[in-house]
């Protein structure tokens, strides 16, 4: 795909287009800006799926490395974030396959307790007016509740309710029919309701 095609694509934000175009031409500074823009989103998705900060950070790095390698193949049909989430989904799946092979799943260690000063203020959530500072206890409860879900359902809930992705985009990311995505998200929410009853 040529650069012009990316620039014409309606799924890529104007600021992203310029950065992506520069990055495709080898401008690493431009790609660094893209990494900064999407690092938290990718990290969040991966963290809630793998349940371990160290692993999540390593996998997030791998996601951006793979994205850079495959930048020439980014067609702009979907948004850049969707493309990144798709890579993150694949990288996480590979991680789980690897872990399954080694059979060494560990318990979730909440990162929010240790990193509370670094948490974003609710006003930084932008499109999330509901966002507010959570207590450490509630945050840990939410982490545990999410981790109690099967990994695939965790990812769907995170994409939908934490990352606020539309269903069709989630469907493309996880490569599942949109009906399956909706029903799994519903089941996940019902399970979370039961786990988080006392906080509701």
């Amino acid at each position, binding site marked *: *795909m040529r650069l012009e095609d990316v620039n014409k694509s309606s799924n890529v934000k104007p600021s992203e287009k310029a950065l992506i175009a520069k990055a*495709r*031409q*080898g401008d*690493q500074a431009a*790609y*660094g800006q893209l*990494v*900064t823009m999407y*690092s*938290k*989103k990718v*990290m*969040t998705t991966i*963290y*809630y799926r793998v349940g371990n*900060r160290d692993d*999540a*950070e390593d996998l*997030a*790095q791998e996601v*951006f*490395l793979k994205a*850079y*390698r*495959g*930048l*020439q*193949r980014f067609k702009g049909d979907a948004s850049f974030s969707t493309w990144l989430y798709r890579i993150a989904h694949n990288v996480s799946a590979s991680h789980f396959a690897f872990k399954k092979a080694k059979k060494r799943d560990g318990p979730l260690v909440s*990162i*929010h307790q240790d*990193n509370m000063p*670094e*948490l*974003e203020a*609710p006003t930084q*959530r932008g499109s*999330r007016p*509901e*966002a*507010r500072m*959570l207590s450490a206890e*509630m*945050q840990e409860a*939410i982490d545990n509740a999410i981790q109690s879900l099967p990994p695939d359902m965790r990812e769907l*809930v995170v994409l939908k*309710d*934490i990352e*606020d992705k539309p269903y069709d985009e989630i469907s493309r990311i996880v490569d599942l029919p949109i009906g399956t995505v*909706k*029903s799994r*998200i*519903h089941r996940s*929410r*019902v399970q*979370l*309701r039961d786990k*988080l009853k006392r*906080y*509701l």
Partner: protein
Amino acid sequence: MKSCESFTWDLNAYAEGTLSPEKRPQLEAHLAECPQCAELAGDLVKVVKLLRSVPAIPVEDSFTEDVMDVIQKDPRQDKAAWPGYLQWAAAILVVLGIGALSFQFLKPTGQEGDQVAKAPAPRSNNFFFDKQEIQKKETPEYDRSRRSTLQRNRMAKTKPDADKGIPMPEAESADSMGIADGVKAKRGMEASSMAPGEAAMNAAPVIPGVTAVPKTCDYAFQLPDTKAVRQVLSGLKPALADGTEKLAETGKAGADQVYLSVTASQLDLIKSLALPTTTEDLQRAKGQGLRKSAPPAGRFSGNDKEGLFSKGKTVDAPTAAPAPAPAPAADNAMKVRQRGRQPGAGLAGQADKPAQVYKVLITLVKQAEPAESPADASKKE
């Protein structure tokens, strides 16, 4: 009336705040009638609200920097910056290059075991490969250069002085017997490209006029091509198996000359043998059977397949060895081929008998030295 399940997706859309205005009255009517769905709707709204309040996972401040470090260290990072068509073009070029290299290196270069010395190839104009270098590796000289370290050391010990050359016998020299080129084992076809010592060590022997140069020999003797010489050599050759893969070689060396090439150990073997050196010995052997003296213990008996030199064996003549033709009558065998002025000219009556040939050979063997360097040889010329 619709069932509760039919409102499942609407409930979730309601919790997300994305329910369409058209569907909202239907759902609200159902929730008013169904307390379970009403409770679930309330909880889902709270769950979604709670999840949306979960902050993004923070990353280290150095995350972007770390990622860019990883990218810069990635061996494929240059490739990532290339457009797709350039990557394909590069891949095709690489494949073509590998194919060309494979063709150059894997193409057949001659028969297995080919021992024919090849003339140096002309300098190639090939841009990518030095064809001359490749062909050089296909020559016996190159094989020679890969001889074992042990053999190199042995050769170094017996290497002559650079100016010494290979002397001929004084009292009964080959010259005096008319064998002017009785022994000349020059080494190195490309002497100019080597140091003198290195050439003597590494290059294959070169006998003037010899078209077939053995790959593995340390010494080469050139003798006139007479019936007697052929008889002696054909008898000697199979007896010189020294237990290695290297065999004594004989062959034509020019128009009227033959050569015998041996390894250093085969040379020692010849020295250790009690060869019939006089005509009387052979005559006696013809009449009574020649009993050879025992060779030094452990040196030869095990390898004398023909039994020619074994203790107690009767040797009629060197023709007892599997010569191509039966031994001719002595008078016919002694006839010397003379064509012009050849090294063997004037040899009739001197090296035309097996005993004389043995004698000459023993003399030459005693004085044989590995080689003179080609540089010295050319200097002498």
